[in-house]
């Protein structure tokens, strides 16, 4: 059975062109970029070439890009870096209640160490209100961090508006663009951000590499302490093949982004429409239009997400859920709860995220299989009965 992968927001396969670009840097051009000899310098050159590509994708200058081990490190670096860099000015950080764990947990760590964090609420679509940001700013506020688009329910946030508010108030502004970079246009000046996180494995690059954009002049304490790599901003021997792969992936993404976003948005809307038609007591989570092109997230009443996913998996379909029962965490998605979903609804969420290899046929198969699974699970649901 050919499997149908619809979990592109969790991770993407590395594109063959990307793997091909990486390969020489494992075995042949394997040098340490800090070394002055030819092996070192050819590795360094490759890293710098990738840096230009990544900068180019988001309208930044290459010296404003620092490579990291992924989106989580970029988020930790931005948040802890500004917190420690600016603590003489204040200890207040504004973020949202729908951030990725990498932002939320970094903030909670700082909270335990005396910082003061505001987690802004969102509306039923998952949108942060720029006005809430404005009202929450105090003279102790040193950082605002709001994600560009949510990984779970796909809502794209009004970053440019928040950027204007941050700029006016002269407060550093960070956005987690892990889900948008390479998928929708991202321009650091248009968004008005000082810091922006990316992760290669979300855009058909390798796992274990990401980047933090740091606008020139942004005061930041290092997160990874050690050697003088990345202009002394991030220590550790550079993951040269990973960085080269990231660069290649970004280059391809830039070329194909617009066309691909259009194709996926169409498939997304078709899938949403058909799901709502074929299954009763189902609702769309997240914003209907200010939404990632590849994200479909629904809650289906009376059934639990993991058991839907497992049943789909048995049919060769890979999806995900915000249910408590999802593998790495025991709480239901804080994101869905923040939007006002009940616990039952959060546990009944199902996310399909589409990607480069998604076809109409694959989605047709989902539409064939899912209603039966829902029927089967509802037959054993005590929730359905109690509502009869």
């Amino acid at each position, binding site marked *: 059975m050919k499997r149908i992968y619809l979990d592109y927001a969790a991770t993407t396969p590395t594109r063959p062109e990307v793997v091909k670009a990486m390969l020489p840097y494992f075995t042949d051009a394997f040098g340490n970029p800090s070394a002055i000899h030819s092996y070192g310098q050819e590795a360094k050159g490759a890293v710098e070439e990738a840096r230009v590509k990544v900068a180019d994708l988001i309208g930044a200058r290459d010296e404003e890009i620092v490579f990291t081990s992924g989106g989580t490190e970029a988020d930790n670096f931005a948040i802890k870096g500004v917190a420690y860099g600016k603590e003489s000015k204040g200890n207040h950080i504004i973020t949202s209640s729908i951030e990725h764990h990498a932002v939320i947990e970094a903030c909670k760590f700082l909270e335990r160490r005396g910082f003061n964090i505001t987690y802004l609420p969102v509306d039923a679509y998952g949108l942060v209100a720029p006005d809430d940001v404005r009202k929450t700013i105090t003279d102790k506020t040193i950082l605002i961090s709001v994600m560009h688009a949510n990984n779970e329910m796909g809502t794209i946030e009004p970053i440019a508006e928040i950027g204007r508010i941050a700029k006016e108030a002269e407060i550093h502004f960070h956005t987690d663009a892990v889900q948008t970079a390479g998928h929708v246009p991202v321009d650091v000046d248009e968004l008005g951000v000082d810091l922006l996180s990316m992760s290669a494995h979300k855009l058909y690059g390798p796992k274990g590499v990401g980047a933090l954009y740091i606008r020139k002049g942004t005061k930041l304490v290092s997160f990874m302490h050690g050697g003088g790599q990345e202009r002394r901003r991030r220590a550790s021997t550079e993951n040269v093949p990973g960085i080269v792969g990231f660069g290649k992936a970004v280059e391809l993404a830039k070329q194909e982004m617009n066309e691909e976003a259009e194709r996926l948005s169409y498939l997304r809307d078709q899938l949403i429409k058909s799901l709502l038609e074929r299954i009763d007591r189902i609702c769309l989570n997240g914003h209907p239009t200010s939404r990632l092109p590849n994200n479909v997230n629904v809650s289906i009443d009376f*059934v639990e997400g*993991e*058991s839907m996913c497992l049943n789909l998996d048995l049919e060769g379909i890979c999806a995900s859920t915000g249910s408590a*029962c999802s593998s790495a965490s025991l709480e239901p998605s804080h994101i869905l709860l923040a939007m006002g979903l009940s616990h039952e609804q959060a*546990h009944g969420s199902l996310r399909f995220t589409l990607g480069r290899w998604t076809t109409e046929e694959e989605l047709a198969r989902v539409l064939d299989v899912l209603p039966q699974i829902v029927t089967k699970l509802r037959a*054993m649901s*005590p929730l359905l*009965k109690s509502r009869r």
Partner: protein
Amino acid sequence: MPDVRSLYSEKVMEHFRNPRNVGEIENPDGIGHVGNPVCGDIMELYIKVNNGTIIDAKFKTFGCGAAIATSSMVTEMVKGKSIEEALGISNRAVAQALDGLPPIKMHCSVLAEEALKSAIEDYLDKSEKRSADGEGERTP
């Protein structure tokens, strides 16, 4: 190419795919209702008792794969057992019968044990009440 692995043992998946004893029992002798929407697992367990022996058990479960498999397994395990024997079924025994559960899913087996205990308590409460009622009938 690596093997395709699964979160769960084959036994769990077998019970998840084909859960035994799904449904309700009409006029059950005991009902157990445990769990809550916050944690995401809700189990209802029905038993039919005859002469101190559980002759039938059914369940309805909202929950993950492990919740469904442990519900299915526990209903299988209790059938034909005396009330006392049934009370001796531990969550570990249920998990073991399923060839184990991932550590973070052990709470599902606890829930299954609790559902069973709760159904048995319900049965014992009712039968006390019934015998009290019966005595009542006899006395006046």
